[in-house]
């Protein structure tokens, strides 16, 4: 059951990725903007330009270009970046861990804050406190990630400069890590000083991405909890003498969390989209930041590689959410 579901999802995922690949590939080539024009030195002859075009395979027809690209990918070759002149796969491997750590940290923080506020709000049902929570949350729902980013920069970077403003680590420590997963590595190797360094760089971009998602989680989860807390089995459990907190955590949460999970999956894809602007604001060396440069430079191979990387992330997230929903619901779990 579990496995069948997974296989099916992976099949769908592969198809989706292929579709995304086709669309992006074609769009990039029919849209205005010429990557070669961006890189030629002044005074290059038309022959030089034609040679460059041929070098990057841009002189072929679109279907032929696509076939060549696909063939390369299947062999593990994503092409060469036109603007950076490096292997696309290498660039992705270098940048993706940074974005994965940021996005995952943001997701966890969003779940903690959003879930925590939803539970507190539920404990405060029918009191003044609940109205305060609802009003504050309504406000937070209206603030997008980049506004958070700018506000955080102003407050924690400029007025009270307690946190580093840019990058993943201090410039001199980039060579202290064996992998690109700085945060994970610092935890696994128990290097506490490095962990603090990485974490302090993560705080602001993480919060900027997490707070809008937290507000959505609070809204949806609190609503679902309110509906669940009046179910017969919760009333019966209250009669058995369970505390309100225990009622929420043990009786209600598991049954209320379904819609929140599903929505978090969707919202998390927005969060990953948000990394583009937030990474830019904090000069955070992830794929989002690189995507902006790639687009500015019309770096077709790199954009294509990035889109596939983003697409893959979306798909993996949605598969994980799907599996989590099944895992939490005994009715689905047992078929």
């Amino acid at each position, binding site marked *: 059951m579990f496995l069948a579901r997974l296989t099916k999802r992976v099949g769908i995922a592969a198809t989706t990725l292929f579709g995304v690949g086709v669309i992006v590939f074609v769009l990039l080539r029919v849209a205005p903007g010429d990557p070669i024009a961006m890189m030629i030195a002044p005074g290059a002859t038309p022959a030089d330009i034609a040679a460059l075009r041929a070098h990057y395979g841009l002189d072929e027809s679109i279907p032929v270009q696509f076939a060549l690209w696909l063939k390369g990918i299947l062999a593990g070759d994503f092409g060469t970046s036109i603007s950076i002149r490096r292997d696309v796969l290498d660039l992705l491997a270098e940048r993706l861990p940074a974005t994965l750590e940021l996005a995952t940290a943001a997701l966890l923080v969003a779940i903690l804050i959003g879930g925590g506020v939803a539970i507190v709000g539920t404990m405060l049902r*029918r009191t003044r406190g609940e109205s305060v929570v609802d009003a504050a949350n309504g406000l937070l729902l209206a603030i997008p990630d980049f506004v958070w980013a700018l506000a955080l920069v102003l407050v924690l970077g400029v007025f009270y400069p307690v946190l580093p403003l840019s990058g993943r680590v201090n410039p001199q420590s980039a060579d202290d890590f064996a992998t690109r997963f700085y945060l994970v590595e610092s935890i696994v190797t128990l290097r506490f000083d490095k962990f603090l360094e990485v974490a302090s760089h993560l705080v602001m971009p993480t919060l900027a991405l997490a707070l809008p998602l937290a507000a959505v989680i609070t809204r949806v989860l609190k609503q679902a909890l309110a509906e669940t807390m009046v179910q017969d*089995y919760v009333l019966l459990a209250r009669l058995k*003498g*369970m505390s309100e907190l225990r009622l929420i955590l043990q*009786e209600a949460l598991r*049954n209320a969390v379904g819609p929140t999970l599903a929505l978090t999956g969707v919202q998390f894809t927005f969060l990953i989209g948000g990394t583009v602007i937030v990474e830019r604001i904090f000069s955070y060396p992830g794929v989002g930041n690189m995507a902006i440069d790639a687009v500015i430079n019309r770096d077709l191979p790199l954009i294509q590689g990035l889109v596939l990387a983003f697409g893959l992330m979306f798909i993996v997230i949605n598969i994980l959410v799907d599996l989590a929903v099944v895992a939490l*619901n005994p009715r689905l779990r047992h078929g």
Partner: protein
Amino acid sequence: MSLLSIRNLSAVSDRDGGTPILRGVSLDLAPGEVIGLVGESGAGKSTISKAVLGMLPRTVRITKGSAIFSGRDLLSLSSRELRKITGSEITLIPQDPMTALNPGRRIESQLTDGLRLKRGMSSTDARRRGLELLEEVHIRDPERVMRAYPHELSGGMRQRVLIAAAFAMDPKLVVADEPTTALDVTVQKQILRLIRAMQAKHGTSVIFVTHDLGVVAQICDRVTLLYGGMVVEAGATAEIMERPRHPYMQALLAAGPRYDRPDRALAPVPESIFAGLREELASFDREEVRHG
């Protein structure tokens, strides 16, 4: 010496602008006795049950009266003191077994919640006791049922589990609010017999809410008939079945077991009787106003 003594209990609905829901209800319940609460929909049966369990909705307000249980007035206890009694000395068999079990938790943990939380039993002891209880309510293969989730059990099985949970605490009083209406007719009979057997075995008193006078005749020692939140007739079941005093009770008995369904009743209750009942309610309300 009665276990529960409700005196002059009146309640109003704050939802419907203070309309009376209960009008001076009194009833007594001796240890080990089963009392039936009957009456048409809206008569106030569930309100009485909920008042005893401390589960009244916020929109229902008690205006008068007391409910003395083992020497303590349930209506004036703090919610903390009440929580010590409910779920342990007073428990509930709910109406709908399909919604009264948490779909996300195994039967074992739900059945033994009370034992662990209120009796402080270890999980091992609670589990052993749970298995005994499931056997007591005639569940075959209790081991499997303990591991099961609610959706794997039939309605009848679930209601047995809930009955086991209600009696697990050896309560003095069990409130059963229409415990069989959600079940198949064939299962209803078994569940009724089971409640009666468990009650006799544990010496428990039961408040049994039902629409069905046939059920009352079958399992209740005494019966209280309500209309508009007022007690219309009360007494020993056998006596009332033979010599009903109030015309409403007489009409209900004449209507047959499905008195609550005018379309299927043998002889529907005549409108003149309802007119008389409404006059009784009105005169009760006038008295209330006069005496404050």
